[in-house]
């Protein structure tokens, strides 16, 4: 019992923050500054290239952008998903740990690249039911009451991402999308009334959620980079219509194969009783191979 209780804060963090943590944002580097690396997967650089044929170093560690990983590259974080450059314009990702409790895959397709502009679409298909049932337990860790009936849910997240290289080495990404969810079977599911969780699970109760956001990524100096993001959730409910999240952090990337992220996340949400905000520390280590 005590051991289970001791794990509680970590468990809560994993639940609410980790799956959606933006641990390692785009770290665009000017090609000229990347002279210490020998990229087997480099392709010729050209502003006029078609989708997928610009600097691969720009596309590393770039989950929040319209960039896709170079073909054949894998990246995985302690808390972040496993991402795979299936081709130069298609990236697949899934969370290696969470997949077994919250099965889901995401495909990001680069649609256009020209000049400083890159456009992509992202498509996720998820089945949250096993996880919801996992947290429907008596006692500690029970975030959903045991008298709830949890059906099989199918949830999809669709978005368009537009990344602009605002300055050399500094990218701005805007995205717009929606989450859609349906279920099979009888449902009686209480909401989890806490920032981070409430807006993300809202579609299970209300069919859909609209999401839009802005990511700023770039190099500060040397191996140090920054990430700042903002995200707005618009929910189809009368009294709990909005949720807002913001994260920022510092990234240390000593090589092209791994990086450390440290930062914070702020989340505010309208909830059934009013509104609430929460600050969380963020930390992640990402490896690439």
């Amino acid at each position, binding site marked *: 019992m005590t051991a289970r209780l001791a794990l509680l804060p970590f468990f809560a963090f994993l639940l609410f923050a980790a799956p959606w943590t933006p641990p390692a944002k785009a770290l665009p580097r000017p090609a000229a500054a990347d002279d210490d690396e020998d990229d087997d997967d480099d392709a010729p650089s050209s502003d006029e290239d078609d989708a997928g044929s610009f600097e691969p170093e720009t596309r590393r560690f770039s989950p929040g952008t319209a960039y896709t990983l170079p073909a054949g590259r894998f990246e995985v974080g302690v808390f972040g998903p496993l991402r795979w450059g299936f081709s130069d314009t298609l990236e697949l990702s899934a969370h290696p740990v969470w997949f077994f409790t919250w099965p889901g895959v995401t495909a990001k397709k680069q649609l256009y690249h020209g000049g400083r502009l890159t456009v992509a679409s992202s498509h996720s298909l998820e089945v949250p039911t096993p996880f919801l049932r996992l947290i429907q337990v008596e006692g500690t860790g029970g975030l959903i009451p045991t008298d709830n009936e949890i059906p099989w849910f199918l949830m999809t997240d669709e978005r368009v991402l537009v990344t602009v290289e605002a300055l050399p080495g500094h990218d701005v990404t805007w995205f717009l999308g929606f989450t859609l969810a349906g279920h099979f079977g009888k449902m009686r599911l209480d909401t*989890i009334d806490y920032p981070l969780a409430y807006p993300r699970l809202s579609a299970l109760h209300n069919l859909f959620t609209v999401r839009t956001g802005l990511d700023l990524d770039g190099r500060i100096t040397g191996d140090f980079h920054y990430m700042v993001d903002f995200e707005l959730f618009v929910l189809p409910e009368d009294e709990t219509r909005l949720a807002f999240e913001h994260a920022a952090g510092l990234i240390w990337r000593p090589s092209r194969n791994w990086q450390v992220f440290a930062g914070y996340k702020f989340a505010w949400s309208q909830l059934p009783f009013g509104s609430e905000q929460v600050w969380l520390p963020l930390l992640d280590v990402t490896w690439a191979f």
Partner: protein
Amino acid sequence: MRRFIPLLFLLPLLACDPFHTQFDDVEGARHYRAKSQVTPPVTSDPLTIVSWNVKYGGGRILFFWECGGHRGNMTRDEVIANLEGLAGKIRELDPDILLLQEVDVQSKRSAYVDQVQWLLDHTDLNHGVYASAWKADFIPSDGLGRMDSGNAILSRWPLENAVRYALPLIGDWSAIEKYFYLKRNIVTAQVVHPTRTFTVANVHTEAFAEDDTKLSHLRRFAQVLAELDAVGMPFVAGGDLNSIPPGSPQVADFPDDNCGDARFEGDDYSGEETWLDPLYTQFQSAIPLADYQADPSAFFSFVGSDGDLPWNRCLDYLFSNHPWVTGSGHVHQGAAPPALDPLMLSDHAPVVAAWEVPQ
């Protein structure tokens, strides 16, 4: 490295109060006011004092922590229906001062209905004070979520100088249990009565401790009352003491505890028979001990279950440092239709007595 990262996340949780569950040893209580004020009657008649544990407006729903229970959070319709029953009974008893225990003000389990405000707005009581006994922005256990539940004092007349006195936590709980779980208290307030200001004290002492935490709560309650008495302040005090009077016919193996699926072990008051002695000897009980011992079942005020069992033990009390109107103290155990049966409104029955404001 992987092993240490989670520990880093624990640090801020331990260093501060991220879920806002903590209280000072002594702090103010929250004031309430009915939306529309009802003018109190101008009379020298004795005041009607009522103490009632209202089970957070749960009526006789059997919750997951009870024998045979499985329910989690209530719907708003369920809460309002139960509150209408409670308010109906309160209007019927027509108290001047009402002591409430287990009243929710912003809890997920009771659909976030502010029950103190709701009861003020649906009875002839005008003013209230409230002190949380269980408060957290989010409790990650049993789907409880947000919780704010506690003790309240409702009055026809204005209440001043409301104070929340923290009671000790159960000693053998883990740190996380202490952080998230009950923070019991005594709440006091001065009633600005037209003839004389007096104090009301309301308490809900520990029910689940296996150590002497409940005894320390009872001692602290007696101490607070003794301090009021020492400065010459008249008071009425009471609440759910989770203790049975000396001379009770049964101290364990109550029929409503006779199951294997309850979250808590059945109540066993063995060895606690003298714990209320200081209150009985120092102050005046609305129900004299001799009256209770002559006919205990007439004063039983609690039974678990879904209402299919009769009241089977006395846990609720009223005390004062001034005399009660002789023979007025009783437990409102039942009522013939069309009056509402208190057995179906909560797992506790209201304790009622008449008290004259000292001149």
